């Protein structure tokens, strides 16, 4: 199983217990690739996961940064009024996954450096249909320099 799918399954199972009340905000940063061309697909995938963990579809987003610099971040606004900041950055030799999920009764943290122990990790970035709409909105926002709606279908 790809790492991000495993992480998703793990968090979904934990969140089903409502350990932090209702999720209201998320900081998710992914430094998962050495390929500048994969930064946006990774960001779209991370946003899609963020949406699932917050339990609400992302309606608007604002993206900034540069593929050349190896760092792109997005401020996302889900339909339920939550907030997410998600970043995709070049790993620069050390894959890192950091996540702070804030609920109205506590916080949940995930910090991992997959592969730092020398074992191979399946870190494929596999696109889903939802990722495509997010990816398009990300690209429009980077182009316009302002917030953009996520247009689906």
């Amino acid at each position, binding site marked *: 199983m790809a790492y991000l799918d495993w992480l998703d399954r793990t968090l979904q199972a934990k969140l089903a217990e409502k350990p932090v009340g209702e999720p209201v905000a998320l*900081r998710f940063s992914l430094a998962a690739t050495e390929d500048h061309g994969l930064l946006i697909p990774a960001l779209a995938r991370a946003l899609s996961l963020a949406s699932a963990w917050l339990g609400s579809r992302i309606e608007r987003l604002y993206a900034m*940064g540069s593929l050349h610099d190896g760092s792109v971040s997005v*401020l996302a606004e889900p339909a339920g009024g939550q907030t997410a900041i998600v970043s995709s950055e070049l790993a620069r030799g050390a894959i890192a996954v950091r996540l*702070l999920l804030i609920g109205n009764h506590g916080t949940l*943290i995930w910090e991992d450096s997959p592969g730092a122990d020398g074992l191979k990790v399946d870190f494929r970035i596999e696109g889903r249909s939802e990722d495509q709409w997010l990816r398009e909105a990300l690209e429009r926002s980077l182009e316009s320099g*302002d917030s953009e709606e996520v247009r689906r279908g």
Partner: protein
Amino acid sequence: MADRGQYGVLLVTGGASHQENYGPGFQADPRCRIIGVADEAQADGRRKLLNRSLAEEMKVPLLPDLDAALRRRDVQIVSVCTEHERQGRVAIRCAEAGKHLYIDKPVAGDLAEARKAASIVQQKRLRSQMFTTLNLPYAQRAMRIVRSGWLGEVRAIHCDLMFAKGHTGSAPLGKARKESYPPRRFLFPDAKREMFNIAVYSLALIRWLTGRREVRSVRAVTGNYFFNENVQRDFEDFGALAVRLDGGLTATIMCGRIGWMSHLSGGHNVVRLSGTRRNVAIDASQPRVEVASDRPPWQIPPRDPDDPMGFWRSTQQKAGIRPRPEWYVPELLPVRSDQSLFIDCVEQDREAECTIADGVAVLEVLMAAYKSAATGKVANLPLSA
């Protein structure tokens, strides 16, 4: 310098403000002598009582007339820590009186007043400093890493700063907060504007780490996720900012007061730096000792009707709040008080790491953030006068 080889420090406003920390900070420095606690003559009855209470606690005189106190020749430095609705005008009066200015963060609630105060400080060649966390180990560590060149060129900075205080769960959820611009009120006894109150630290840190790079735009959202008190006051308890600086550098900030049980220490405080060669995450709570034991668990402090959010040192002391026992975070680098660092600047006639002019730049970003949150669009800087 004042009599007996000491700087005379006037505390402008007293209890139930951060003066409860700043005043003792000055008092602990042997180069300082506290002249008294003063305030505007028109301060309200509650404020006058709080001023008296700090003066009594510190065993210094209460000086009820600010203008008279500012005319005193034995006052060289003022520590201004008023409610932000009036902090700008008070700072202007203190600067006009020719006093070096130590000022609470953010520097004012009104950008025009803040600019005027900074301009007087510059004109009169006074020294000034806004309170920040730049002296704390995590910030010093971040600066050392940046200066070492180990990261390469810094291209992005991400700051999370949450305060683990307050009894959460009372705010209704499910819809986005409607922000207003410009903000006019910032503080009630039971609520603060938390983006204003907390993002100021991260913005000051980002400017400092980047050599005072100017912010060119900000996109921000605010939220009401935790406290009904904030909902009732129409104050956000949470904020998120995406910031572009000169030279294409970007920064993001998440901040908020998110509840007593949200962290095993004072609150989540992480700075991530993304460089052209490496990335690094600096957690203010690491390295740390972690303890798991059968000691009695830490208890949420009871709600104090005078300070339900745990804003002030005095109410926390009254409630007997103790540090949580699970983590012990040792002092990684030696810490000098922010007040002593300011005295160094006055003594050596040099600029502080965060002057009132830096504070004005930060305030402008905060105001732009409120504008962005209110309009749903990116706000460009500089803001018009």
